[in-house]
Every structure is written in structure tokens, then in C-alpha cells.
């Protein structure tokens, strides 16, 4: 009885765990490993020859001007998306968790909303904000008498990437704000009360209590923001500008996608993917190192 029961149990757990695991290995882990494997080959499609070329694809990346320009755009996005997103999200979270405003839940609901929109919807909505003549932005500028500032935002290679940066911040800040609000809400209220008694201003409370206690959450969200910026900029640019004008909004993933779909240049596409992967890992590690407060106080 007990032995067959045990055997039945093992069978049950195997049936629970193994089928999902198998699917996961095939449809998730295998494509991941294949990315690295294929990056060492010249390969142009099913049935085509696969020639081992070692690191040649990677060597070619260094000579590919358009691709280097795209990596440059990725770097610019990294400089100008995560940090402003963090500031806006954290500032809003701090202000909303002070509970002075009766309608605080309304703001929370509204700001979170863009993060669950389809990137296609986001891209089209912003296309009509930026549209040169009938766009909302230029209409606003004209109404304010700033006609000189009304530019063709997406059509000008000097402003296009900046325009995308604004879209990315608009899309993501509410999501992180909700995470920060939750983090702030879990800070013991007595700390703020004590600070209040000591006469500490809201700003001082923010620097001395909120920031240090929220630090672990901030560190994690920075890593999310790095990954999010890489993929979301690719998706938004793919619909909104197709990387143009003149590669101004092209990112490395846009190039990977084109090499993989239009050119069927799979080996090269995968080499780009590997570099993007390493790029985001290195940035995450740098961010983790820079935000490691423990080490700073000890060293």
C-alpha cells in the first residue's frame, strides 16, 4: 500500500513538473543557447549551408558603421531613459505616499495605465502627438505663441531620438512609481513621525528615511529599466519610425531584427543579439556596483 502510494506520488509529481519543463527547455532555453551557437556561423536559412566562421561575425560588427551608430543610440537611450524615469517615478511616489492628496489613488491608476498599453498603440498615439502640422504638441506650442519651436519632431534626425526617449519615459514611469509606492508604504510610519517631531522637513525625510530604506528596491528597478529600455525602444522605433530618419532612431535590436528577417542573415543577427545581451548584462553589473552602498561605507 505505502510503496505503491509512494510510486504513485512520484509519478504524479513527475507529470506535474516534467511536461512544463520540457516545453520550457524547447521553446525558451534552446533558443537562448542557439543564439550563442549560431553567432559562430554563417547561416542563411533552413536548408542552407551552415559554415563555421568562429568570431568573424563579431569582427564584422566592429566594421559595420550603421550598427555602431545603432549601438551609439542604445548608449544615448541608456543615459537618458532610466535616470529620468527613476526621478519622476520616485518623486511622484514620495509625494503620493504622503497622503496629503485625497485623489492620490486616481493619479496612481492613471500613471500606471500607459505601462499596460500595446506598444503599437503607444507608437501610433505618439505619432499623432509629434505630427508636424496637426500634431498635439505643435498645436500646443502654437497656442502658446512658440511657433518657432514647432519642429517636425520625428522627421528631423536631430530630434527623433529625443522624441523616442520621451515616449519611453511616458510609457514606463507609472509602473515603477507603483513599485516605489509599495516600497514606501512598507517603511514603518513611526520613523516619519519621529522625524516630524524633530522638525525634519519633507525633503529631509525623503533623503534621510525614504531613499536609504527604499534603496534595495531602487537597485532592482534600475536593472529592470536597463532591460526594458533595450527592448521597448526596439519595439516603439519599429512601429513609429522604422529606425529612421537616416538611422537616427535605429537600435541594435532593430538591426538584429532586419538581419534576421529581411536579409535572412541569421549568424550575423545572432552575433548582434549576443552583443546586446552582453551589453545589458555589463550595464546591469555596473549599475549594481555603483549602487552598492554597503561597499562604499566599508571601503
Amino acid at each position: 500500500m505505502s510503496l505503491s502510494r509512494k510510486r504513485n506520488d512520484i509519478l504524479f509529481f513527475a507529470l506535474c513538473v516534467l511536461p512544463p519543463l520540457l516545453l520550457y527547455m524547447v521553446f525558451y532555453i534552446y533558443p537562448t543557447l542557439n543564439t550563442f551557437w549560431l553567432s559562430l556561423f554563417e547561416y542563411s536559412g533552413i536548408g542552407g549551408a551552415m559554415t563555421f566562421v568562429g568570431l568573424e561575425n563579431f569582427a564584422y560588427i566592429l566594421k559595420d558603421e550603421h550598427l555602431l551608430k545603432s549601438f551609439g543610440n542604445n548608449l544615448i537611450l541608456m543615459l537618458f531613459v532610466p535616470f529620468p524615469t527613476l526621478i519622476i517615478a520616485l518623486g511622484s511616489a514620495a509625494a503620493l505616499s504622503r497622503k496629503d492628496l485625497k485623489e492620490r489613488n486616481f493619479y496612481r491608476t492613471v500613471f500606471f495605465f500607459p505601462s499596460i498599453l500595446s506598444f503599437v498603440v503607444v507608437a501610433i498615439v505618439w505619432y499623432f502627438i509629434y505630427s508636424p502640422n496637426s500634431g498635439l504638441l505643435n498645436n500646443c506650442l502654437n497656442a502658446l505663441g512658440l511657433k518657432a519651436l514647432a519642429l517636425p519632431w520625428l522627421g528631423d534626425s536631430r530630434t527623433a531620438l529625443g522624441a523616442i526617449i520621451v515616449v519611453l519615459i511616458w510609457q514606463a514611469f507609472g509602473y515603477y512609481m507603483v513599485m516605489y509606492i509599495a516600497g514606501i508604504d512598507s517603511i514603518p510610519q513611526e520613523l516619519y513621525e519621529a522625524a516630524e517631531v524633530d522638525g525634519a522637513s519633507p525633503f529631509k525625510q525623503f533623503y534621510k528615511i525614504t531613499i536609504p530604506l527604499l534603496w534595495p528596491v531602487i537597485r532592482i528597478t534600475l536593472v529592470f529599466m536597463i532591460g526594458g529600455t533595450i527592448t521597448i525602444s526596439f519595439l516603439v522605433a519599429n512601429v513609429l519610425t522604422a529606425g529612421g530618419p537616416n538611422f537616427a532612431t535605429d537600435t541594435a535590436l532593430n538591426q538584429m531584427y532586419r538581419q534576421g528577417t529581411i536579409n535572412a542573415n541569421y549568424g550575423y543577427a545572432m552575433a548582434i543579439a549576443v552583443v546586446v545581451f552582453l551589453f545589458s548584462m555589463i550595464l546591469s553589473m555596473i549599475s549594481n556596483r555603483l549602487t552598492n552602498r554597503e561597499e562604499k561605507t566599508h571601503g
Partner: protein
Amino acid sequence: MADSSFIAKSFARWTTRLIFIFLSLVVLYPLFWNLMASLKSNTELMDNNAFALPKVPHFDNYARAFRKAHMGEYMFNSIYVTVASLVVLYLLTLTSAYGLTRYRNWLSSTIKTIYQAGLFIQVTVLVIPIFLLLNSIGLTNSREGLILVYAVGALPFSVYLLTGYMVSLPMDYEEAAMIDGCGRWRTLFTIIAPLVQPGLITVMIFNFFTFWNEYILALTLIYDDAKRTLPIGLSNLFEVARYATDWGALFAALSIVLIPTIVVYSFTQKKLTEGVTAGGIKG
């Protein structure tokens, strides 16, 4: 003295309030504008007055979006793919999270680690190798292939979140159920599933939006127009409308994608924001 600090406080409160009202407008007005534009005639849309409201509501934009731009078919495909992916994900997540929390040894902790590795790899980056894989096993251009990729792609996050709910569950329930002669499978689906319902609901709501909105995999893996989902239909229409200038139909199509999102969001936003705090991760 008390008076001046009161004034200072309410001044600060109104300053923050004004900033938040401005931010709310920045978020909401473009969406409101799109919904309004979906009711305008094409001549109204051409006259460059962004702030005007529609003179008479033009529901024919929606008729054109459904009839000429096939938004009805895309919507059917989107509903099918989203619902089926959620069902598959439900089964995969419930069974594997249960197995991994109740059967603990070196093997299950290794498997957990493999799932956690997936949290750091975004499916978007894998679009090309996934395409190659599906192509080699004949699953491209198939809604079922897409469903499988969606469900599996959501697995690391979902398993991670649900195991969190499972560990805190006492064993007593299952033992009592099994003494009563309830089989393993029935115990899992009729006793355990309701107990971890908050976690399951969070997983389902999160992934509803992910699947409903997904763009790049659907674009790459499906090439038959009749099998495409709403985001792809919408982006194609956007490409065409740029040149053919049937803006009215485009805005109507955009609203067709947007309105279900607004409706589902208004019912689930509380659960959703709880999920952000519980799991903290979304691709």
C-alpha cells in the same frame, strides 16, 4: 505662526496637485484625443485643429475598420490566442509550481534555478531563434504555435510568482483531502487552486495584457493575414493610412484595441498594482 505654516502647507499641497494634474493630462489627453478622433470625419481630421471635438459622431469609421480593415477577424484571432494562451499557462503554472514546492530535493531546486534564469532573458530578444525553431518543426504561421510560445514565454515569471504563494500554504489541507479519498489531481485543481487564487489571478491578469498587446512575435511568426492578431492588424493599417489617409478608420481601429484594455484595466487595476508589488517583474 500657526497660520503661516498652514498657508505654507496648503501652498505645497496645491503645487504638488497642479503638477499631478498636469502629468495626468499628459497621460490621458492623448488617449482621449484618439478616442475623439475615431468619431471624426476625415475632412475634420484634415483641418489641423487638434482640440476640436467631433461635430457629429462618425460611427462609420468603426464600420470601415471592421469591414474593410478586417478588424473583426483580427479581434477574433486576438481573443482566441489570448484566451488559449492563458488556459495553457494556467495548467503549466499550477502544475509546475505545485510540483516544485511540494516535492523538494536537489532536482526541484535545480529546476527552479533554470526557471529563474529565464527571468533575465527577454523573449523579445529571442524572436529570431524562436522563428527558426518553429520553422523547423512546422509551427510557423500557426496560431497554436504562437499560443505555445506565449504560454512558455510567460512561464518563468508565473512560476516564480506562484511558488511564492504555494510555499506559505500549510500541508494540512491536502492531507485532509487525501484521507477523504480525494485523488492527487482532484486535490490540486479543487483544493489547492482555490487556495492560491490570489496568485493565479495576478498571473492571469498580468499575462492577459502581455498576450493581448504582444507585437513582435505575432508579427514574425504569423504571415497569413487571416491569422493575424489585433496589434499586427493595427500596425499594418497605420502603415497604409500614412499614405491612403483614411485616418478615421485608423483611429477607430486604435480604439478597438484600446477600449478592451481600458475596460479590463478598470476592473483589475487594484489586483494589477498588487501584482507589481508581489512579483515586481514584467518583461
